[in-house]
């Protein structure tokens, strides 16, 4: 299961790997550079010949399949001005990717992922703006798929699991949005919760896969929000 290592989807990635083994053979460094240049040329070709490709579905189908098989994410074929097909295809591709990402990361984040994390972790490298992501997720609502959007302190989140966050859980995620984690002493300082209450809710969130535990900090166990995985990288 790929997580954050490559924005490419697992099946395309497998195509890419098989291809690079038998067809491309020698995967030396300069060969990899040639491959990336080839990819960029292909993307340019798609944008330049947008009209012909649009008119001829058979040729377009083959062209896109080939791009997909050597690891070009279809989203990167889209360009705001000279869009390749129906302008909305760009958004439908994002919809498909959002569904896959939510299903794939469910065990890492308990089925709760922020728009910011989705954008930074999976879309920003495909030159997708946050507004495009929001528009696609808006479109997804018509599928009534249990993908519910909600807010924590003005920040947009997407939940793809049935049970809603309780108020206490939401408050803890608010605290986590500052440093990435919550702890019994932090909750006493910020919410003046008694230790036994914080302990019970923090453990409940771990049980539901919403927080990871970290027992190597001095003093007390820290409970980290997995949304911090992506955010912390942008700070470095």
């Amino acid at each position: 299961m790929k997580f954050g290592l490559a924005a490419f989807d697992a099946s395309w990635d497998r195509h890419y790997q098989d291809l690079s083994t038998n067809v491309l053979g020698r995967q030396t460094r300069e060969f990899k550079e040639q491959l990336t240049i080839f990819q960029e040329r292909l993307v340019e070709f798609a944008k330049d010949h947008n009209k012909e490709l649009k008119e001829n579905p058979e040729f377009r189908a083959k062209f896109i399949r080939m791009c997909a098989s050597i690891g070009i994410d279809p989203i990167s074929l889209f360009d705001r001005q000279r869009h390749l097909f129906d302008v909305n295809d760009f958004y439908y591709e994002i919809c498909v990717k959002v569904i896959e990402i939510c299903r794939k990361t469910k065990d890492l984040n308990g089925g709760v992922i922020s728009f910011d994390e989705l954008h930074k972790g999976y879309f920003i490298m495909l030159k997708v703006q946050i507004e495009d992501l929001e528009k696609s997720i808006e479109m997804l609502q018509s599928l009534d798929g249990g993908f519910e959007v909600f807010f924590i302190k003005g920040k947009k989140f997407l939940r793809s699991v049935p049970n809603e966050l309780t108020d206490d859980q939401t408050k803890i995620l608010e605290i986590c949005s500052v440093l990435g984690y919550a702890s019994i002493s932090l909750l006493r300082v910020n919410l003046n919760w008694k230790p036994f209450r914080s302990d019970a809710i923090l453990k409940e969130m771990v049980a539901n896969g919403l927080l990871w535990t970290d027992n190597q900090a001095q003093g007390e166990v820290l409970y980290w929000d997995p949304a911090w995985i992506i955010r912390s990288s942008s700070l470095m």
Partner: protein
Amino acid sequence: EDKNKTPLLIIDREKFLNKSQFIDEIAREIYGFIMSEFKEQKEKDGVILITLVDIYALYNKSMRIGTGLISPQELREACEKFEKLGLNELRLIRINGRVLCISSGNSFEFVKTKIIEIVSFSPGADLLRLTQSLNENNSNSWTMGIIMEVLQNCVNEGDLLIDEQISGIHYYMNSDWKI
């Protein structure tokens, strides 16, 4: 697993005079796709149940690459056309009053009974264990989306009790606190 399912006939939005003709064609393609994709499950269990969201991703990725993906709204409209088009093995249902799914046969009850059965044989089973047992011969036709919703229903209706540990949620039969 990557059966080469390139569509025989390219159903391309531009080729259709009006939208509803396009939707009808798409409905037939989706119907055929689901019936073949879940053929094993239909034969083995006699039922199919999958969320519209999962169908959207699966169908677009398998059948629509290169020919232009369909929108969520188009998928929904196409599925709503099944009955009118005589495609009556599959129909649109809503589970837990929330989630739209494509279903064949008495699918929800089937999965619910199976989950309760698994828990009765292995008390304390968690989601991982349930998913493995449900998809025994790695047919993985019971997607995570469905299993979680049905499990939620079992807890809400009082069929199953939860044992919440830091290791995760474990499920037990409810034999003492009937409602």
